[in-house]
């Protein structure tokens, strides 16, 4: 068994025996590095800071990426996402801090030494960055050529990869002849060519239409599952993170604003910015929302249901058991990974203090999250 198999989970190794490392010389190169039996986090960032002139792009950023997980980094433009992802393969050098890739700090490495590290990291781009003068097959073969694989190996591997991304019939086409989605599939095949331990995705779906975005995200998810490949993706679109990420980091002004598993960040965002990125807009709520209840007013609640809670008729039960008539002001269903998250904003009138308390008790045992947004005199 090749030592590269240690890189993947055992079940994945079984599944993709022929996908394992066939390039002896590259394997040898790995032996020089203390990575063979490394099983810690694929990425470990320690207090990374970076400025461009007076602009602080990254400010004391610390996080880890575990093997086989998909980490989504979301932020507005200018939040430092691009700088951050470029630090991960040494295209950008941090001013301070450690950038450990597979247990090795790459921040102090020379450009020459970085080349070896980059061969273990695939990257896909917003604008695909395919070479226009090369065919699809030649584009996919390029990382292998750089790694020194000989021609028969390259041909064989390119065939496998084009098969994986479903573009076998486009091998001889030039990128200009492909659609955006097909170009990104070529980009993915190319990024996977040298069997990287980590895949970086730099706004890879931002130039694609929603349907194509979905198919590309599904492909990434599929690759992550089948190959156990660790993926770090940056995006400004919440829907992208929601569709694929296991864990989410919210980046703002170069700082980690919020971090957590995807479901908790989506269902219980801690920071106001995260709420805004999630598309929770205060403008959708009744005007004149107040903190205190006044006679004849409404109680405005946000109720969130996920998992099994989302399969129960909670609002109907509320009406049956407490004889209140909730008015739905806003409702949404979001798919976070495979789980549906249902959110209602409801207003309940004809209230008195004891009823308000009973509603709270009733709902808190049945819903995933309950939040009193306030009280409104009118539902304008």
């Amino acid at each position, binding site marked *: 068994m090749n030592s590269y198999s240690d890189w993947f989970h055992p079940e994945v190794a079984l599944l993709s025996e022929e996908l394992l490392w066939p390039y002896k010389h590259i394997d040898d190169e790995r032996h020089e590095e203390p990575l063979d039996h490394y099983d810690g986090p694929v990425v470990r960032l320690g207090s990374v800071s970076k400025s461009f002139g007076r602009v602080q792009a990254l400010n004391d950023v610390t996080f880890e990426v575990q093997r086989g997980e998909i980490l989504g980094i979301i932020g507005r433009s200018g939040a430092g996402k691009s700088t951050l992802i470029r630090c991960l*393969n040494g*295209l950008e050098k941090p001013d301070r801090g450690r950038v450990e890739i597979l247990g090795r700090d790459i921040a102090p490495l020379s450009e*020459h030494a*970085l*080349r*070896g*590290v*980059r*061969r273990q*990291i695939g*990257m896909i*781009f917003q*604008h695909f*960055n*395919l*070479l*226009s*003068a*090369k065919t699809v097959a030649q584009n996919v073969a*390029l*990382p292998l*050529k*750089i*790694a020194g694989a000989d021609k028969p190996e390259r041909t064989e591997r390119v065939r496998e990869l084009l098969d994986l991304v479903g573009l076998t019939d486009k091998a001889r086409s*030039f*990128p*200009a002849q492909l659609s955006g989605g097909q170009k990104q599939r070529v980009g993915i095949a*190319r990024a996977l060519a*040298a069997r990287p331990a980590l895949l*970086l995705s730099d706004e890879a779906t931002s130039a694609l239409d929603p349907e194509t975005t979905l198919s590309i995200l599904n492909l990434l998810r599929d690759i992550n599952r089948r190959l156990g490949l660790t993926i770090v993706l940056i995006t400004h679109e919440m829907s992208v993170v929601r569709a694929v990420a296991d864990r989410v980091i919210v980046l703002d002004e170069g700082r980690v604003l919020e971090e957590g598993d995807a479901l908790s960040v989506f269902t219980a965002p801690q920071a106001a910015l995260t709420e805004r990125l999630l598309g929770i807009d205060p403008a959708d709520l009744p005007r004149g929302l107040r903190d205190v209840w006044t006679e004849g007013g409404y109680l405005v609640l946000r109720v969130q249901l996920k998992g099994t809670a989302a399969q129960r008729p909670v609002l109907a039960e509320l009406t049956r058991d407490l004889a209140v008539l909730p008015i739905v002001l806003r409702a949404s269903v979001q798919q976070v990974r495979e789980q549906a998250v249902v959110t209602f904003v409801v207003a309940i009138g004809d209230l008195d203090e004891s009823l308000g308390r009973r509603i709270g008790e009733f709902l808190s045992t049945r819903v995933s999250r309950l939040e009193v947004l306030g009280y409104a005199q009118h539902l304008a």
Partner: protein
Amino acid sequence: MLNTWPDMFLQALWETLEMTSAAGAIAFVAGLPLGLLLVGAAPGGIWENRFIDRTFGTVVNAFRAVPFIILMVALIPVTRLIAGTSIGTEAAIVPLAIGATPYYARIAEVSLRDVDRGLIEAVKSMGGGRWTIVREVLVPEALPGLLAGFTVTLVTMIGASAMAGAIGAGGLGDLAIRYGYQRFNTGIMFGVIVVLIVLVSLVQTGGDRLARLFDHR
């Protein structure tokens, strides 16, 4: 002295072709690396180097600032050193090549600089070094522009070669000046003009076709 006009035309055409193709080949072979050097040494380039950027930039500008006819005369000692003589078609190749190299280097520089930086970044992210970037990205991606630019250089050189008659290089320009202008032979003058138009058209068409052949954008 040749006897018949057709013989003289053929002789002159041959000399023009000899000068421009030999000097053109040298300009391509020397100008392309010079263009790469200029692009690579520029700020943000793959081998960013202020000294090289400034020095070579200045030298290239200096050569391009001197009118070809003056450059040719000024280079007579160099020509003599390289060609053994400063007179004749072969000798004219030296100043033509020296004049055309910085010209083509600048044209190549423009094409090379136009290559999407994202592509360079992509190859860097694969672990490619500078030479990989030159070989797999810069030259192939800029090739249509490099060929179109070379066509422009060749056409300019056909024009410049007419001046080479001043140092006895012969060629079509020389024929037109000596017989057409100085001896008031309007027929020769027109003949040369027609041949030059046909020649330039052929070079331009050929260059365009070649550039299109390599353009997959």
